[in-house]
């Protein structure tokens, strides 16, 4: 980190991602898991509604305000996970230090493995349903593709959120203990 000159954008993002005001939201592993679970639930709901909106024959316009309402907590949950990881996936590579770079590589590799397994399961499901009902692959291909795309996009965030660790003990507490104060 900081071996290259940081741009104004880098510094702004670094400040934003390290803003400690929302620390209580992701201070414990249980809260981080809750944020990830909420994010997964909202992503599934939003993806389902969007698929329904575009593929249903009846043009269900009621899904638009529902999606708008769900988008707000989705963005909050995204912010909480990004806060928990200190912007591991949002900051540019040269802004990260060696531990963060290694962690980002680890997160992306694990997300890639999980996504590969999900793609395999999706392809198998499509082929099996195709074998049972001839036109099923054609009917389900588009929503499945959207679902896979969304999962591929957000999986690193979920993995990073679940791998985030607790903040090290506060400095003043440590110093007081070490100095016998």
């Amino acid at each position, binding site marked *: *980190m*900081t*071996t290259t000159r940081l741009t104004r954008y880098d510094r702004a993002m670094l400040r934003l991602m390290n803003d400690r005001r929302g620390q209580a939201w992701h201070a414990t592993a249980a809260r981080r898991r809750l944020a990830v679970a909420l994010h997964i639930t909202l992503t599934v709901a939003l993806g389902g509604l969007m698929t329904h909106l575009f593929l249903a024959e009846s043009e269900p316009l009621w899904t638009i305000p529902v999606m708008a309402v769900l988008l707000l907590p989705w963005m909050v949950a995204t912010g909480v996970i990004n806060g928990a990881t*200190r912007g591991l996936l949002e900051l540019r590579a040269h802004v*990260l*230090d*060696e*531990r*963060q770079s290694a962690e980002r590589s680890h997160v992306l590799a694990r997300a890639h493995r999980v996504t590969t397994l999900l793609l395999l399961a999706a392809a198998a499901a499509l082929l099996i349903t195709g074998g049972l009902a001839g036109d099923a692959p054609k009917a389900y291909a588009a929503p499945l593709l959207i679902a896979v795309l969304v999962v591929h996009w957000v999986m690193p965030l979920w993995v990073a959120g679940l791998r985030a*660790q607790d*903040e*090290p*003990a506060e*400095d003043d507490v*440590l*110093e007081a*203990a*070490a*100095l016998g104060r």
Partner: protein
Amino acid sequence: MSEQVHNRLAMVRAERKVSRQSLAEAVGAHYQTIGYIERGQYNPSLDLALKISKFFGLPVEALFSLEPFRPLTDEVYGRNQP
């Protein structure tokens, strides 16, 4: 790969009254990384270990070791290890 590197970073940092944030800025790391090194949850690269040692003006072996450090009082007052 997962060899534990022991360190005295927390003690030296507290002794010199250096905050994690200022040490992190001086060596080009994130303040959490300093905390994880102190907790033994992350082993720094040689580059980072040398930068930290240089910051404190100490040889790298004074801060990092593959063997657990003896308590400082034992070293100062010469008590033999049990």
